[in-house]
């Protein structure tokens, strides 16, 4: 297709479709159930349009705040010997600049765009767990604001955004700054994971009928890969932050060399997250470009399937790159070679995408509006960043430029080029889908010119400063080293770039008008997010038959508004969305969605308070907030899992159930993703255990000092008893047996699960093993700690299930709560057994071998 086609304009609508006009009460009913709370109560809203908006606004606020920090950095470095900032303030500022940009801007910004765009793009009324998404937003926003505010009290972390120990251990960072980083960022990562679960299940299960994976827009593919990467990458850094915080608070020496720990363990875990993180940020931005380019060139994306291949391949390869941040740590040469090779291999899929965009631009006629300018700016800047990336992937070159401004220049080219420019393209491109006025073209061009010139002036000279030997993280430098002109130019460029951002903010104030009817499809784009919408998303959900439904059927917007397609009404009188099969997109189930409320807001704020009060060592108050948070979650979940409302019609001849359990239910999918998160965290732990053993086998005890095997077998016995109780309970529920028997089995099973941990700890203590003595003790006691975490979750859900059983809300048919409990319980049993095998079994092997 070369131009937006007008084929089949007069053809009739393919079945299934409703006759028109539709009865007017249908629209009234839809508007009623999806109505937003009025006034300030809108903060209790969970509609993706509201939460997505707030989410993007918050992420952009953090972009501005961290950008101001960047300007302070460049002001300080403009001239040699500058006394504008003290060394300690400078250290806090550059640490916060990196941390806030990465954790509070980049990841949340793309997650926010996902929340805002995905449901409309996929033809869903909302994401499958709207309250979870709203919870993730509030947790991030409140936690992020408090974290940022530490800067004003001289309490901010100062150890660099990657927080390497031993610098960040208690010996060298005795203040609270590092603790704010560890608990604050750890907490915000939990919110990112919650968002990722929402996005995975949303993309796989709530697409419009007929939207097979092959017809799914590239942005949805990138969000799927993005979320999957979060699931596997973030747990590594969560484990690392837990270990460093436990070391700081309780003296468990994971990273202290004198006691058999190793600071390199932190680097491995951090970069196992940190490198995929770069692609976690870049892939969704690439997905935005893959949506914008076809619309601006008015032609289908060239190499659609190849791009999908490239996205998945990038997702995999990016996990084989982490050691390239550690080329100078003395790792054996061949290993460096493996990572160097993988670092070059990952350039291949990025190249595929680049050529696909260039091919699409060449195949169509590019309209030179602001989004196109930002896309072209992205292509230019990101290519330079990619090429300097291949340079630093070469080990010898990296040894020369490691920790110099060359690396700073490289990653700003990658991150600003690869993420900020596409994001601004996205702002200009999608604004008319949500605002009654598009952003200004005239201002937009100026924004682009200032940002593009300013960026290159700010960062290109830094390559040269780096090659001349200027190290990173210095708060000032002496005169006469030849770095002066590059630094002065860079600082000037930073201000030009900032002027572009300022102009953009002005454009937002002048033209962004959310709330009213959106300006609509001003670019003549072909994907579903450009259908006319109300607070209920689309009036009726179209049956998708191609990758560009609006180009295939120019009449589609009118048909959708008139209610000709799926679900032109609320079938059950509450909010609902169609759940489809993961691959083929067949309508399977009508999922009822929750209504607005405050419980998730309370849960999020209380949880943020819990973590931050822990830093301030206000333990009692922290525990009160923790209990309040869990209580709010229970209140929120109590109304979930509504009873079966019978089968309903979503389109003529298409009848679907309103209640499913097991693998058909979205809750089951979400729990499976959560289990993957937990498993990734535990595998990072197993890696840490074995890593510390290879570094310090001397702290592993001889056979004579290992725990008595009787305790080990008793712990295994507890796990087995717990498993049997679970299996029996499942049987009782399936056969609608006596609830009292089920309650007894669940209670006994939970007690056995807790008992296994107690026996594990008892066994270790009896053998004289202590977590504070050496790295062996620390990493050994980490197993019951992690097991305790999962077990606590199982116990809370178990008690919840018991309460629902007592209230008659858990039955043989209405059993999603039990299914969810069962999955996590099974996972806890597996993790517990693996932990016992590792911490009780492996020392025998090590002792016998060494």
């Amino acid at each position, binding site marked *: 297709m070369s131009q937006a086609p007008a084929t089949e304009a007069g053809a009739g609508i393919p079945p299934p479709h409703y006759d028109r006009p539709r009865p007017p009460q249908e629209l009234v009913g839809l508007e009623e159930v999806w109505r937003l709370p009025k006034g300030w109560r809108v903060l209790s809203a969970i509609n993706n349009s509201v939460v997505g908006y707030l989410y993007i606004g918050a992420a952009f606020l953090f972009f501005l705040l961290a950008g101001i920090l960047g300007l302070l950095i460049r002001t300080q470095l403009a001239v040699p010997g500058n006394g504008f900032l003290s060394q300690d303030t400078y250290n806090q500022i550059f640490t916060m600049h990196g941390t806030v940009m990465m954790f509070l801007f980049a990841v949340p910004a793309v997650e926010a765009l996902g929340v805002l765009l995905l449901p409309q793009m996929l033809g869903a009324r909302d994401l499958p767990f709207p309250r979870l998404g709203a919870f993730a937003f509030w947790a991030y926003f409140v936690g992020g604001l408090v974290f940022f505010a530490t800067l004003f009290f001289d309490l901010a972390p100062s150890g660099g955004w990657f927080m390497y120990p031993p610098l960040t251990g208690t010996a060298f960072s005795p203040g609270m700054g590092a603790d704010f980083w560890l608990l604050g960022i750890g907490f915000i990562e939990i919110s990112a994971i919650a968002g990722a679960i929402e996005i995975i299940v949303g993309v796989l299960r709530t697409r419009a009928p007929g939207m*097979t*994976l*092959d017809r799914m827009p590239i942005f949805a593919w990138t969000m799927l890969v993005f979320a999957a990467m979060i699931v596997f990458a973030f747990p590594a850094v969560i484990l690392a932050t837990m270990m460093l915080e436990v070391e700081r608070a309780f003296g468990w020496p994971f990273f202290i060399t004198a006691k058999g720990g190793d600071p390199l363990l932190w680097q491995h875990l951090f970069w196992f997250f940190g490198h995929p993180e770069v692609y976690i940020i870049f892939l969704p931005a690439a997905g935005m470009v893959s949506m914008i380019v076809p619309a601006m060139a008015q032609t289908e994306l060239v190499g659609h*399937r*190849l791009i*999908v*291949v*490239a996205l*998945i*391949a990038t997702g*995999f*390869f990016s*996990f*084989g790159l982490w*050691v390239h941040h550690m080329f100078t740590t*003395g*790792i*054996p*040469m*061949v*290993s*460096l*070679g*493996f*990572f*160097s*090779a*993988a670092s*070059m*291999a990952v350039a*291949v*899929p990025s190249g595929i995408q680049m050529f696909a965009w260039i091919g699409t631009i060449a195949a169509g006629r590019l309209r030179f509006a602001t989004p196109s300018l930002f896309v072209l700016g992205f292509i230019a800047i990101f290519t330079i960043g990619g090429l300097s990336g291949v340079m630093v992937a070469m*080990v010898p070159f990296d040894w020369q430029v490691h920790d110099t401004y060359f690396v700073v220049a490289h990653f700003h080219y990658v991150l600003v080029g690869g993420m900020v420019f596409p994001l601004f393209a996205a702002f200009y491109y999608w604004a008319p889908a949500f605002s009654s006025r598009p952003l200004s073209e005239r201002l937009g061009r100026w924004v682009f010119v200032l940002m593009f010139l300013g960026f290159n002036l700010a960062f290109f000279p830094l390559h040269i400063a780096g090659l001349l030997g200027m190290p990173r993280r210095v708060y000032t430098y002496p005169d006469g080293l030849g770095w002066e002109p590059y630094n002065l130019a860079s600082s000037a460029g930073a201000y030009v770039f900032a002027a572009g951002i300022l102009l953009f903010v002005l454009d937002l104030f002048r033209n962004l008008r959310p709330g009213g009817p959106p300006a609509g499809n001003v670019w003549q784009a072909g994907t579903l997010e450009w259908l006319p919408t109300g607070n209920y998303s689309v009036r009726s959900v179209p049956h998708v038959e191609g990758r560009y439904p609006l180009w295939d059927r120019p009449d589609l917007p009118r048909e959708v508004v008139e209610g000709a397609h799926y679900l032109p009404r609320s079938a059950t009188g509450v909010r609902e969305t169609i759940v489809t*099969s*993961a*691959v*083929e997109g067949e309508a399977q189930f009508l999922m009822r969605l929750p209504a607005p409320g405050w419980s998730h807001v309370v849960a999020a704020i209380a949880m943020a308070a819990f973590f931050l009060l822990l830093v301030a060592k206000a333990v009692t108050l922290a525990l009160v907030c923790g209990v309040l948070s869990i209580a709010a979650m229970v209140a929120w979940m109590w109304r979930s899992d509504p009873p079966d409302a019978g089968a309903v019609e979503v389109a003529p001849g298409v009848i679907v159930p309103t209640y499913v359990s097991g693998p058909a239910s979205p809750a089951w999918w979400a729990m499976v993703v959560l289990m993957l998160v937990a498993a990734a965290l535990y595998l990072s732990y197993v890696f840490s255990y074995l890593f510390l053993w*290879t570094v310090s086998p001397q702290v592993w005890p001889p056979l004579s000092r290992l725990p008595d095997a009787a305790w080990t077998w008793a712990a295994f016995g507890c796990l087995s008893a717990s498993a049997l109780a679970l299996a029996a309970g499942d049987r009782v529920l399936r056969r609608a047996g006596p609830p009292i028997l089920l309650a007894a089995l669940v209670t006994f099973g939970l007690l056995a699960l807790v008992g296994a941990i107690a026996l594990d700890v008892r066994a270790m203590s009896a053998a004289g093993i202590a977590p504070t003595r050496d790295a062996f003790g620390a990493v050994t006691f980490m197993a019951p700690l992690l097991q305790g975490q999962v077990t606590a979750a199982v116990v809370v859900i178990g008690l919840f299930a018991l309460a629902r059983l007592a209230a008659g809300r858990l039955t043989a048919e209405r059993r999603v709560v039990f299914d969810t409990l069962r999955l996590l319980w099974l996972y806890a049993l597996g993790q517990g057994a693996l932990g016992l095998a590792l911490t009780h079994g492996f020392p025998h092997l090590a002792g016998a071998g060494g």
Partner: protein
Amino acid sequence: MTRFALASLYGPLLWAAQFLLVYASESLACKFLGADAHRVLVLTASLAAALAVTILLLRQWRGDMHGTAASLGVGLAGLALVAIIWTALPALILPSCAAPT
């Protein structure tokens, strides 16, 4: 159907397995078995992975599988093959168990 979609990921999964094995084995093999053993291990594992991916590629190419999953699978297996060969190269060029100098 979901099973078929997952099957398209076998190529990158094989690369991941090879990568993990050759990297993780270096510290252990060097500790207990010596440099030659590690080199043999890397080359054997890489050859096995390359063969497996080639077979996978041919099967998907010939059409034993159908639809989107198969065409994604072909592309992913091709990229995985490149990455597997690339990953094996350092073991051919550089000495095993040697610290960088």
